[in-house]
């Protein structure tokens, strides 16, 4: 299994390199790192910066200079902030990882519970209710749902009920000057995590239901029931474990994608994560942050894909990794 994992990681290196070059090329063509200087009253500033930043060199030459720097330990310097790209990404990754951790943890538990309940109670009232709710959840735009939550839990308690402060906050992950895992953190975390989780639960619960139904209709479950194994034990020990493999695969694949895809949630809740960094860097044509950003997100996706494969093999003994 270790050899398989290493092989998979090695295979991904050329993919990341080719992808990073395509990104470099596309960003250079589509965005202008000197955009904010174009309206300067100093007519010489653009020419000065083109020379200073090496923008007069060919795109492949600029790319290979960056690649060379990468191998010598420098991820590049942001043309937007003048900061170290690695530090900027590390700073942005931490809030995003927190959101993903709590969102995936809470979302997967709820989705699995809903999926199992719906499958076990197929075509009953509860199943229909959860099915309807999941369709609504999938259709909810994050920006709208997030603002709705803010209105209900952040604004109304103050305006309508006269509360001194809202029960739940919606700006950042901590109050100014606060840090750590404390009540203030939880009050900030709830609304973004719920916004993120609602869509995850909606889609994952449908998947959980389907995989559980597959398991419940399999021969080994019928055999277990025929042998008189109690229903709860059949569900928990036979069907659930086998339905977990595809469910966890989907969860892990989605978690990898989430690493770079929380733009809307981070924007609404003013969380300085990877999505916001992507947006700011794109607008500024900051290719030296976008490249390592893409590389980190690609590695995250590759790692989560790998984890998905490994977990599938771990949960389903019929699967062998070669």
């Amino acid at each position: 299994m270790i050899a398989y994992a290493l092989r998979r990681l090695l295979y991904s290196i050329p993919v990341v390199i080719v992808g990073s070059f395509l990104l470099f090329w596309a960003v250079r063509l589509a965005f202008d790192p000197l955009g904010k200087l174009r309206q300067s009253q100093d007519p010489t500033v653009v020419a000065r910066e083109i020379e200073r930043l090496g923008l007069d060199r060919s795109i492949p030459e600029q790319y290979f200079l960056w690649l060379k720097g990468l191998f010598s330990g420098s991820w590049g310097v942001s043309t937007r902030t003048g900061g170290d790209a690695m530090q900027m990404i590390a700073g942005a990754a931490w809030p995003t990882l927190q959101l993903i951790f709590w969102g995936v943890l809470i979302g997967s538990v709820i989705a699995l519970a809903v999926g199992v309940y719906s499958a076990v109670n197929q075509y009953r009232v509860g199943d229909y209710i959860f099915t309807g709710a999941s369709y609504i959840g999938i259709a909810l735009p994050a920006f709208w749902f997030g603002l709705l939550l803010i209105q209900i839990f952040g604004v109304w308690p103050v305006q309508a009920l006269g509360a001194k402060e809202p029960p739940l906050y919606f700006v950042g992950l901590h109050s100014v000057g606060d840090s750590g895992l404390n009540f203030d953190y939880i009050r900030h975390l709830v609304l973004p995590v719920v916004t993120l989780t609602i869509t995850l639960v909606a889609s994952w619960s449908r998947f959980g239901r389907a995989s559980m139904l597959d398991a419940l209709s399999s021969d080994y479950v019928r055999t277990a029931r025929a042998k008189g194994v109690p229903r709860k034990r059949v569900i928990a020990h036979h069907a659930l474990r086998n339905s977990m493999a595809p469910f966890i695969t989907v969860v892990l694949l989605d978690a990898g994608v989430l690493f770079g895809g929380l733009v809307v949630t981070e924007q609404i809740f003013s969380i300085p994560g990877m999505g916001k960094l992507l947006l700011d860097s794109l607008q500024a044509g900051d290719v030296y942050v976008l490249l390592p950003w893409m590389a980190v997100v690609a590695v995250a996706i590759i790692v989560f894909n790998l984890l998905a494969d490994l977990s599938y093999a771990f949960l389903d003994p019929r699967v062998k990794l070669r």
Partner: protein
Amino acid sequence: MTSFTRRPGSPVERLKRALLPAAAALALGISGCSAQGTSDSGSSASGGEIVIGAEQEPDCADWIATCAANIWGSYIMRTPTLPKAFDTRETDDGWRLVPSDLLTGEPEVEITADGKQIITYSINPDAVWSDGEPITGEDFVYTGLQVRDGDDIFDKTGYTLIESIEAPDEKTAVVTMSEQYGLWRILFSGDFQVLPKHILDGNDRAAIMKDGYDFSGGPWKIDSWVRGTSVTLVPNENYWGEKPKLDKVTFQFITDTAAAFQALKSGQVQALYPTPQLDALSQIEAGVPNTNIEVDPDTGNSEAIWINNEAFPFDSVTTRQALAYSIDRPAIVERLYGKLGVSEAQQSFLSPLNAAFGSDEFSRYTRDLDKVDELMTGDGWEKNGDGIWAKAGQAAEFRITSHAGNKRRELTEQVLQAQLEEAGFKMTIANSSGAEIFSKLAPEGDFELGLWTIIDTVPEPTLSASFTSTAIPSEANGYSGINFVRTNIPGLDDLLTTVDRSVDDDERIAASLEAEKLIAANIPGIPLATVPNILMTNDRIGGPLQINPSEGPFWNLEKWTVG
């Protein structure tokens, strides 16, 4: 309860606008209107902390570097923490640069026989940095030379004319310019303020400053800058002037407009300074309880229609004039900002911040479709079967380009489109990203009409950058210069050069007014609207609350209180 205050402009403007705030307040269904001067509400108690929502985060705090070109950076860090030679203050002649408390008075200016300009700054003996070290002439020397000779500098305008800077004694700085420079007051003011030599000289200035710095020569100093989250200011105990009343001010970055308004409503922030985009105006119209709203139409931001003077059909003055007579500019302004009580069109490319140098020459261009017919037919145009003007088989069809996704400008374009269609012009909307517009389309002249803002950051006119023939971007000059409209009006270069170079204010104003006449007659573009500034504060915040069109809404933060 919401109170609504609208700042008055020039004396004439004040008279003309006297009734508008009340009308606006009625339209918005809000009360407590105050029409004159600054708003001074809330408690006057000292101490306390406030949180202000900031819609942008500066990219860096190394203010003279290219990464620092961000207006919010100047509002929340640069202005409160760094000393400058001149402040932007409202005088009887409008907004002007006046000597700050860093100086003992107006600097001495001398023109030598060989045409050089010598400026002598006398520094306030009480002026010290936050570490107690005196602010000296050497700090001027360091700052001036960093800008003049540095590599990564945002704007060297003016500083390249510095021949030498000397500090003959601790509290004096003498700058020798190689030639006369009328805009000399922006040196060590405006975008670039004085830096401490004893801390920065010999060290990596960018490394010390870019993520915030712990020195200060202003009433506040930076306590912390948590990237992506907030900037916190605390009083500079060694400031020699009026000390802040508040114990701490935090600027929290909230880039989503809807979330920012919700934060104000819920009390998570106590003030906002939103860009007047349509979503912000809708939020204001819907009402924000317990909030004072200060609206100031006399700003440095002017929205204008920029006409490519080399592109058909606007390669003749006649069609440009016909275009101007086709547009009902007050109707557009009313549509955009009527809810704020702002309905008057801008009549000059000089913003209200530079009203002393401007005129209302463009007021002659009011919508007059008979005049359009007269001009166009007189120039050989006839309407074709579609009702569009055509000449030699070419119809008067053109594009307008602005920032894609900017709802306010999209609305403006739609109104323009309807007005121009009635006048016999067919305009299509071809918007693009800001980067694409200013790095490619505008420099290369790949547009017919453009809609964007011209920004005056200091009360000194800088129209030469937009309208002198030497600033026309071309392949030969590497597409540098921002005369995107490619205008080349005989006589204008000389007038604008006089405005830039003369040190005689009367001569500068006279030249500027002459330039205004030439510009209005040739119509390289059409000024449209001044973009108003809006300051929203919780009614617990006390002032005086006044927006400074150059230094921003927090220029007098040291006077703010919280009840």
